């Protein structure tokens, strides 16, 4: 294939991409600033905090590895959320799907003993991924066929799965020797290899990168991606020209569920090595922010998950050296979602400032021209 043409990006596309990058960047900075104010109010220097965070994140080879290992689950859930949101589905079920992936990964990783290393790794990931896919498909079915609200269904299923997982970790699958409620460590054949020795960074991150590229390829280069684009932007036009939105809901849900559960399994097969209560809790919801910051673009998600990886890894340092809790990263992440979904907020604040500066003329240039009044 002709490489030059294949990656050809026109000026318009650059402009639009740049615009999205701008929105994300401005949202990120605005969130950092707002949380910085909170840090400042609670009596610390926000600048020092952020500096020590970045320093902490890039201190050594191990800390850089930590950045990427923190980014790994976020990469998966970010991708999972982004792909569903491309057809305007809000899949908050990725939280539960990832958890089930982690659980199934732990089961397959532990109980399947006859497979050699590489096949066992992939078999485990595949079964886990398919589990998530089936769950997501079920949610899609309830939405399309019964008209149920996918967010409610997903939230309730998330809770139900959490208890199922908790039951299994406390009961039938509970490890014999430990006192904690967790499953047995999975077989070594199912473990992913470490990318950096003595770190938590595994080849799982590379799998995430691969998935991101595959998804970017699907969205950009395939007919499926084209249909997703159409159905997500104008459902009626799509239906007029034979593109059925409901079919794409199913497909997007399935991909989303697969990727989320795969991420769960990769956590089990990587740093965690077993399943326990709350082992992967919260990553699903953080995925919303990762996807938003990445402009719901798989390649963007690679960057946004990296950025959050830096924040998270750095926040551990900050948490160790100061009294600032690492929870502020969560707040930054949520603020990002708010700003990315309504970038107008930032622009309206900007306008407001401009207006205050030039508040002298009574009729602002951007206010509508007064219509002729009949009474005078």
């Amino acid at each position, binding site marked *: 294939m002709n490489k030059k043409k294949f990656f050809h990006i026109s000026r318009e596309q650059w402009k639009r991409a740049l615009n999205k990058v701008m929105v994300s960047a401005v949202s990120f900075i605005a969130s950092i600033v707002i949380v910085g104010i909170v840090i400042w109010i609670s009596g610390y220097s926000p600048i020092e905090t952020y500096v020590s965070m970045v320093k902490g994140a890039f201190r050594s080879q191990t800390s850089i590895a930590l950045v990427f290992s923190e980014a790994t689950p976020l990469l998966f859930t970010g991708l999972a959320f982004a792909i569903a949101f491309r057809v305007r589905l809000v899949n908050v079920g990725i939280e539960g799907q990832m958890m089930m992936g982690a659980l199934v990964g732990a089961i397959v990783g532990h109980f399947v003993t006859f497979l050699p290393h590489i096949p066992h790794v992939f078999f485990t990931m595949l079964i886990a991924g398919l589990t998530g896919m089936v769950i997501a498909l079920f949610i899609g079915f309830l939405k399309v066929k019964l008209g149920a609200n996918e967010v409610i269904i997903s939230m309730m299923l998330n809770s139900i799965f959490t208890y199922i997982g908790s039951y299994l970790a406390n009961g039938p699958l509970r490890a014999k020797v430990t006192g904690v409620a967790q499953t047995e460590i999975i077989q070594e054949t199912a473990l992913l290899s470490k990318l950096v020795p003595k770190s938590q960074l595994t080849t799982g991150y590379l799998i995430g990168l691969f998935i991101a590229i595959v998804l970017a390829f699907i969205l950009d280069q395939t007919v499926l991606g084209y249909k997703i684009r*159409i159905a997500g932007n104008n459902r009626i036009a799509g239906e007029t020209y034979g593109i059925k939105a409901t079919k794409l809901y199913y497909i997007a849900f399935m991909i989303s569920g697969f990727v989320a559960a795969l991420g769960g399994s990769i956590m089990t097969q990587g740093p965690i090595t077993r399943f326990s209560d709350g082992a992967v809790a919260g990553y699903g919801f953080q995925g919303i922010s990762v996807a938003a910051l990445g402009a719901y673009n798989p390649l963007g998600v690679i960057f946004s998950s990296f950025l959050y990886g830096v924040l998270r890894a750095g926040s551990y340092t900050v948490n160790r050296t100061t009294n600032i809790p690492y929870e502020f990263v969560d707040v930054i992440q949520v603020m990002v979602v708010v700003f990315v979904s309504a970038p107008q907020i930032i622009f309206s604040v900007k306008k407001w400032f401009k207006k205050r500066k030039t508040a002298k003329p009574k009729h602002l240039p951007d206010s509508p021209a007064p219509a002729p009044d009949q009474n005078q």
Partner: protein
Amino acid sequence: MQIVSMHNITKIFPGTKALDSVNLSLGEGEILSLLGENGAGKSTLMNILYGIHHPDEGEIFFREKQVDIRKPMDAIHLGICMVHQHFMLVPAFSILDNIIAGAEPKFGPLIDRKKAYDRVKGLIDKFHFNLDPNVKVSELSVGEQQRVEILKALYRDAKVLILDEPTAVLTPGEVDDLLEMMRNLRRSGTSIIIITHKLRETLAVADRIMVLRNGVLIRDDIKPEDTNIEELAHLMVGHSINLDLHREAEHVGEVGFEVRDLSITENGVQKLNNINFKIHKGEIVGVAGVEGNGQTQLLEAITGLASPDSMTVMLNGEPLTGDAYSFLHRGVVHVPEDRLSMGLVPDLSLKDNAILGHHDKPFAAKHGLVQKENIAAFTEKCIREFNVKTPNSDVLARALSGGNQQKLIMARALSEESEVLVVAQPTRGIDVSASEYIHEQIFQYRDKGKCVFLVSADLDEVYQMSDRLLVLFNGEIVLECKPQDYTKEELGEFMLGARKKESIPFAKEADD
């Protein structure tokens, strides 16, 4: 005394002069009928009186005092109320709640339902509306819902009632009831302006008739007793018959597309009743008719978007069934009536838009992969051949002007092999040069020996373009003819239901 008078009202919308120095006067207890074709400016004039639009020039007087009506509430406070064609009702509420919402009588902090009930019941009895205020609106027929809308206005002490196409949705019996109600209202001193194209009803109830055409006041002093349907139809459609633009079909071949026994019922209302027609190869068949007489349903049925109660479609002698996808891929291409919602994805590039519907044809997709070079070439071809003005093919569709958007949609439909073009409102809201260009392309397509089915609310357009005309009225084909056999005025009579079916059914004359 004049209750309302509007002087020299001019309203300019981007590109068109919707109203050009129009005067209107309305006496107390008078029923004024405002006649005109689609786009004549009736609705704009009434929207100005009701405060939805603001005139660019002109003055409005209410009871001889100049007023500035800037929003509907201003009009309502003056006592000018409008009954919209699309009812502003809440089906889940009772009639009473619908009427009082926004103007509730109070008993302390609570709604005084007793007082409200008595008031509404009083109005109902006074005007013989025959409704129970406690019934839910969802249980009412369309005619009854309209009465609720009128009650809403009366409850607010309407002095002037504007009825926008009040009979469009009613059954004949309901129409008679409405006319009777209007006479009752007149007796009690309410003035009424009725916007309509229904001539019979106008003649039956109006005290005076006013005709608008292309934003210009034609007459406002017509007395129903001094006129007849024919004269009114002529006044409405005008005398400008311009057949110069028409190009005779070069070669009309055998039947290419045929629709039989098409009937559609929506919510119990018969929208289309036993429609039959054929399109020969190399022929443009146009549908003339006032909007809302079944055009939308007809278009949806013959493009596979809706599933009618009954329909048989034959394409080149073979039955055609299935959904929009099957129709499209058998060669029935579609230029939908609503450009922005159905025709385009405004937030995507021209390339993405250009292949909508072609997205899995071999040139656009191989093994599930999009062929970007081919798509780019295809888009360039569309842009070039249809003279779409755009900096490049990567801009978003929303960045184009309406005319260029429409050209792109046409280009998309015609650039690939197809058999039948179904095109609706091809030139609505676009400038003259783009319109001419699009017309030319339709002629060229026809002359390649293809079938064209054209639906337009613009009578001039259908008249000029069609080789054969169908007139749709109330979901039925009331006339099938060659345009040159009838004058535009005569067609107007058919469109408005003034004349009934008199053509020989097409089946008999077919296959000649």
